[in-house]
Each structure stands twice: as C-alpha cells, then as structure tokens.
C-alpha cells in the first residue's frame, strides 16, 4: 500500500511538470489558435540561464532564478515580436506549427552554441536528502515542483478570471474579430500570451531542471510531453491541461513501476491514441466550433510556383547531367554526404506529397524510415534474406502501419493529425530501443551487409551513389506524373479547401490515404537504403529528431514543389560536412532558416529561385 501511495505521489510530482508545460500550450493555443512547439525550448533556456547566473555570476539562487525568468521572457518577447505574431496574420495554422518547430530548433541551436552538448546536473533547491512524511520519502525538488505548479495555476486563474488583462485575453480566445471591435489590441494580447507562456516555461525549467538531466535537446522532450498531456486533457481548456498533465504523470509512473520503464512511453502514447480516437478534442472540451461553410479567407496560402515547361526540361537535363558527373569530382566525404542527401530526398518527396501537396502534417516520418531500415537490417542479417525482399518486407510493414494510422487520424483535423503522427514516431522510437533482439537496442543494429541485386553488389560508394540516384530519378518521374494528374490537383485542392473539393466529388479520404501510403512507402524505402549505406542503424539515426529535421528540410527547400526538398536536404546535409568547423551552428541555422522561410519564403528556396527564373 505504501508502495502504491509512493508511486502515486511520484506520478503527481511528475504530472505537475507536464501540467506546467501543458498550461503554456493551452494559453497560447486559446489566444492564437496555434500550437507553439517552442514551449519546451523556454524551459531549457530558463534552466540553463539560471544555472549559469548562479555558477558564473555568483548570484544567490533566488535571484538567479528571477533573472533567468526575466531574460527568457525578454527573449520570448523578441522572438514573438519578430516571428510569431507577424506570422499569425499571414500564415495558416499548419504553417504556424512548422514555424514554431523552427523556433524550437532555434532554441536548441542557441543552447548548443552557448552551453555545448554535454548534459548538466543542476543542484536541487533544498539539498539532495528526501524528506520523510508519514512513511513516504519525498524528494524535496518534487515538492518544489508541485508547489510552484500550484502557485502558477492559482495565479493564472486569478489573472484570467479577475483582471482586465485576463478579460481581454479571454475575449481574444473566444472571438478575435469581436475583441478587435470592442477595442482590444489583439496583436498585443497575442504577444502577451506568447511571452507569458515563455515565462511559465522558464519557471518550469528552473524548478524542473534539478529533477532531470538537462542538455540542449531536453526542450524537445519537454515539448513533446507537454503536447501529449495537453492533447489528452483537451487543449482548449486549462482544467483539461492540468488534468492531462497529471494523468500522463500517473500513467507513466504506474507503468514504470508495474510494467517496464522501457514501455512507459509506449503506454502513454497508447493512452494518447485512445483519447484521439475516442474524443479527438481531449477529455475536457473547450469552446464550440465555427461555421464550416465559410473559409478563413485571410490566411490561406496563395502562391503559385510553376516553371515554364521549357525551363523545367532544361533544368531537369542539367540536373541529371550534374548528378551523373558529380561523384567523379567530389572527395569521399562529400560523396557520402551526397548519397545521404539523395536518400533523405526520397523520404522528402513522400513527405512533400503528403504535406506540401496534401497539407497533412506528419511529424513522424522518420518512424517509417526506422521500420524500413530495421526490416532491411534484421531480415538480411538474422534471416539471410536477399536485400530486395527485405526492403519489400519493410515497405509492407510500413504500409500496414500507415493504413492503421491513417484510419485513426484521417477523421482528425490538421493539428491532431500532426499529434497522432508524432505519437506514432515516438512509439516507433521506444520500440526501436525496447525490442533489442531485433533492433539491437540503444546501441544499434550492426553488421548490415551491402545491398545487392541479382548477385551484383553495391559495395563501393560510387555504386551506391548511382543506385540511389537511379531510385531518385524513378521516384521523381513517377511523382511528377502523379502530381500533374487528377490526383495531384485533388491533393492541392484538399490542402486549402477540403469542403469545396468534396463538393466537386473529390474523394477526400481516399486521396489522403493514398498520399499517406506514398509517403510511408518512400520513407520506408529510404530507410532501407540508409541502413545499407551505413551498414548500421541506431535509434537516434531515425528517431523523432530526424522527423523534425525532415520537416525543416522540406519547408526550407520549398514544400509543394518536387525539387525543392532536394535543396533543403542538400543544404542541411552537405554544408555541415563541407564546413566542419561550422557544424556546431547547424541546428541554430536550420532553426532560423525554418522560421524565416515559413515567414518570408512560403515556398522555400525553390519558390524564390522559380520567381527569379520566371522574370
């Protein structure tokens, strides 16, 4: 019994962390309608700032904490002013989601540049010794977390319910147009909600920091936990966010105690999927929906990027010749980078069909790469299958997963679709670590052989390069045909206006399914090639960070264009290889680029290039 109580208390402590994170999400979502993935970034920044102020500047802990929260808030104000708030009036919600992913990457990159990649263990506020209450051992930091969470909940409630400022915030949440009419400065309120969420994030980081091990990419994990919590509880309501956080914490602790810590993640994600299927808007529902037959006019995406047929043919020819000649002039390191670029490009073409053309956000694309990669590795090493068969097996498994996932998610709107794919990716992550007989666990699957086709082994980089190039060309030709036909048009129509598309007889669900299937097949194929290229595969090569990187590449290169992603993939793969000393800045740069591109170059570098060429 004591044990159970101990676990439950542990769950509540853990859950308080999630609830804190979830409240930041909910606040920004309610006022702006956007999921701000950068939320976890505020936490890392706040925690590490506090740590440095204490250890470097020698400030007393309380002052350091205050300083950290203030500096983080100021930074949030700057970022919000320059990117987030201007984006709100120009970008669709899904592009805002991408942009906030860019901000998260930017935060990570910043932390990486300033604090490096090593983990930090921050000192607890009141010593390491847990205190004993009624036979229970409670870590002091956990008590701090619960206390701070409670104070913030009460403070936030008071502000929203009892102050003029809160009233204005709520007005923006309920009906921005009406709020504007009665004289609320909506843009200011949006900025305020962003900064406030940043401050909450920083406070969370400062108190949570000592309870966890902290490094540059911890923010991402915190973002994901908070996101999952808020999705379970119901994003449009504060009680929902809190309940979701606590529930997630409890389930996690109970699963760790009674099942296995390896699968506690999987259980939490299972919980999320169940909630998404059963009650897409979360356990506690917020405000009512809007009229469906009117479109949100101001914020649809309106750019048309088409090369003239002649330019396109000349360009394709030049690219093909360059592709054939390039390996002869590059050194080994760059050739390797080029092969990776092309392999990732295969995944990106699929992601582009799904996201760029179809407008369905996927944050779990690397999950399919993992399936393809591990299938290729496992079946060829453990069962001596021919590589082609192993690749096909991977594609088959990916297709089955994709169809199940699509069946669950297609009823869901953009945001929840993003969430479900993220959950899928994380689930695959934990499977990749958990099923170590098949995947080799955290240290990876070693000894994967060469790819061979009818006895011809692709055992040199040059051969591998031409193999991958051949696949890329085939895939491109097929997808160009598909995108220029009814299917491509239907997808684009669905992207901006599914209702009008359906009113013309477009099979919306069927098209989305097909796009999903294509993206899964291509990702799986690319994952297999990836494994054959490295002769090795570990979970972090095809994990959720990779999924986010793929999204960055797509947006930076140019979504909704077939060749755009090649630019994105090359930029983020070849450049860091070519300029090794600058590799440290890669994350920061890709974050800045992602946020900048979604704001100023809606069709990425390729779109900009096209506009120049058309002139």
């Amino acid at each position: 019994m004591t044990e159970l109580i101990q676990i439950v208390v542990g769950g509540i402590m853990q859950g308080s962390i999630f609830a804190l994170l979830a409240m930041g999400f909910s606040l920004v979502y309610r006022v702006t309608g956007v999921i701000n993935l950068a939320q976890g970034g505020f936490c890392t920044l706040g925690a590490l700032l506090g740590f440095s102020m204490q250890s470097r500047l020698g400030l007393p802990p309380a002052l350091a904490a205050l300083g950290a929260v203030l500096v983080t808030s100021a930074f949030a104000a700057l970022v919000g002013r320059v990117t987030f708030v201007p984006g709100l009036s120009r970008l669709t919600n899904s592009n805002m989601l991408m942009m906030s992913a860019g901000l998260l990457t930017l935060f990570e990159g910043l932390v990486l540049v300033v604090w490096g990649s090593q983990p930090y263990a921050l000192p607890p506020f009141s010593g390491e010794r847990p205190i004993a209450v009624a036979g229970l051992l409670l870590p002091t930091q956990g008590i701090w977390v619960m206390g701070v969470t409670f104070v913030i909940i009460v403070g936030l409630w008071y502000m929203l319910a009892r102050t003029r400022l809160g009233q204005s915030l709520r007005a923006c949440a309920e009906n921005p147009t009406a709020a504007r009419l009665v004289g609320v400065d909506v843009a200011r309120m949006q900025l305020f909600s962003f900064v406030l969420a940043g401050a909450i994030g920083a406070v969370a980081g400062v108190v949570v920091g000592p309870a966890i091990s902290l490094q540059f990419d911890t923010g991402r994990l915190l973002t994901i936990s908070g996101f999952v919590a808020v999705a379970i509880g119901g994003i449009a309501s504060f009680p929902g966010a809190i309940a979701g956080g606590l529930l997630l914490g409890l389930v996690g602790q109970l699963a760790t105690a009674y099942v296995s810590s390896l699968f506690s993640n999987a259980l939490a994600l299972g919980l999320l999927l169940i909630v998404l299927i059963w009650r897409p808007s979360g356990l506690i529902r917020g405000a009512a929906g809007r009229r469906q037959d009117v479109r949100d006019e101001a914020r649809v995406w309106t750019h048309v990027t088409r090369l003239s047929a002649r330019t396109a043919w000349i360009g394709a020819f030049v690219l093909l010749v360059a592709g054939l000649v390039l390996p002869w002039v590059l050194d080994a390191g760059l050739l390797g980078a080029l092969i990776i670029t092309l392999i990732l490009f295969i995944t990106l073409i699929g992601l582009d069909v799904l996201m760029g053309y179809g407008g369905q956000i996927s944050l779990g694309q690397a999950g399919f790469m993992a399936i393809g990669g591990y299938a290729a590795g496992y079946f060829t090493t453990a069962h001596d299958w021919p590589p082609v068969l192993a690749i096909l097996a991977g594609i088959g498994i990916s297709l089955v997963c994709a169809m199940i996932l699509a069946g669950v998610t297609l009823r869901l709107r953009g945001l929840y679709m993003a969430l479900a794919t993220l959950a899928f990716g994380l689930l695959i992550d934990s499977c990749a670590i958990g099923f170590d007989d098949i995947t080799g666990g955290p240290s990876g699957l070693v000894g994967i052989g060469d790819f061979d086709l009818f006895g011809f082994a692709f055992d040199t980089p040059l051969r591998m390069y031409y193999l991958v190039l051949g696949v890329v060309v085939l895939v491109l030709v097929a997808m160009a045909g598909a995108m220029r036909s009814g299917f491509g048009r239907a997808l684009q129509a669905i992207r901006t206006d599914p209702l009008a598309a359906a009113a013309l007889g477009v099979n919306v669900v069927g098209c989305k399914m097909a796009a999903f299937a294509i993206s899964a097949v291509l990702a799986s194929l690319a994952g297999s090639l990836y494994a054959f290229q490295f002769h090795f595969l570990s979970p972090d090569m095809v994990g959720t960070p990779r999924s986010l990187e793929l999204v960055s590449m797509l947006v930076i290169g140019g979504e909704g264009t077939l060749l755009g992603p090649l630019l994105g993939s090359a930029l983020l793969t070849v450049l860091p290889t070519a300029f090794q000393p600058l590799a440290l800045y890669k994350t920061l740069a890709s974050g800045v680029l992602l946020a900048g591109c979604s704001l100023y170059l809606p069709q990425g570098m390729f779109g900009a290039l096209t506009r120049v060429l058309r002139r």
Partner: protein
Amino acid sequence: MSALRVQNLSKRFGGLLATNDVSFDVAEHSLTALIGPNGAGKTTLFNLITNLFAPDSGVVEFNGISLAGLSPGRIAKMGLIRTFQTARVFPGMTVLENVLCGRHRLLGHGLFENMMWLPGARAEERRLATQALALLDLVGLADQAERSATDLPMGAQKLLEVIRALMAQPRLLLLDEPAAGLNDTETAELASLLRAVRACGVTVMVVEHNMSLVMTIADHVVVVEAGGLIAAGPPSEIQVNPRVIAAYLGEEPV
C-alpha cells in the same frame, strides 16, 4: 420525374430555426431560382441538400434517390454539384488547374497510370485541358488560364467557380449567388451562360438577389423567408404574389 425533391426539411441552429418544414420540387431541365431576404436560409437549404450538415428532419431526393446519410463527396459524384456563396477557388493553383479539378469525379485514368506516364492517361489530360480552355473562353477567362486563381478579381473568381462546376458535368447544378460581385457585363455573360447550360439539358437551381436577372432567366421561382417557404411558382405569378411582395419585393422594387 423531378430532378430534386425536398420534403419537410427542417434545421435548427441553437434557438434559430434556419429551415422550417420546407418542401419543393425542382423539375428536370428547368432553371429554378431560390430567392428570399438576407438570412432567410437559402444557403442553409443548399447545405442541407448537399449534406454539409444533416437536417433535423425531412428528406432530400435526387432523381428519386434519397440523399440521407451520404457524404458531400458521394452526392457530388452522383452529379449534384454546388458552388459556394463566397468564391472558393483553390488558392495555390492556376485558373486552368482549378477548372480541371472540376472533372475529378469523372477521371478515367488512375494514380498508377499517371505515375507510369501511360499514353492514355496523358492523352486524357490533354483532352481535358482543351475542354477546360474552351469553357473558360465562354466567360473570357481563357487568356488568364496560367494565372494564379486567387489573383483574379472577385467577379472573375465567381465566374471561374461556375466554370469549374460546369466542368464536373453536373446533372443538377446549385449556384449560390453566382452574380454577387459581378459587374454588368459579367452579369450578362453569366445570364447567357446559364441559358446555354440549361439548353444543354442541365437542371439548374440558383440563389439570386438580382430580381431582373431572376425574372428573365428563371422558369420557376421558390421563395423562402425566415426559414419557411412562402411561395413557389412561375416568375409571372411570383411577381404579383402579395406575400412575396410584402416579404421581399416590397423593399426592392422590380
């Protein structure tokens, strides 16, 4: 047989009875106008017919088949095509691509054939493009075919939406205020287009505020007010119907 039969349709939004026990028939090959003051529930009727949301009670039959429970996509596939009150051209696509979208329901070649660039599939694409351009030419938009659809002025966008709906080869076409935002020349173009469409054997139902347009092109008029049907008949009768005059024509003399 009537092309569309609406029987005792009702829909409530909160406290508002947006459609109240409405019944009417649309005869095959006719051009029916649906009129009524602002907020009368005309758009709601269209939304109910195309099952954008389900009615609280009542039945809609299209060529004798009940549409209850069918998705908007399925209904469109049966040849019942509608347009929206605010132009909903697809952003990010050219004018031509927008029109081609209309034909989606009748495409003969599938995804795989197009991925393989099979000659049949490419030929179908070319044939459709020619047809689409011919349709665009009817409203003088053929030379704008390669422009981004959302760059067109509002009037042209509304015409484009009508053309897109025609490309779908509808059996019954529901147009929600196609003339709103059109200038006089465009309105005249639209009127002759609608007459031509009807001459091709397509049944048309159109929501319209422009009374002189309604009276010249329609051969049947349905009038709703505050959710309820108040009159139905040929234009000449509607023009002199005292209830209609009181409800609607009174405030906007013909």
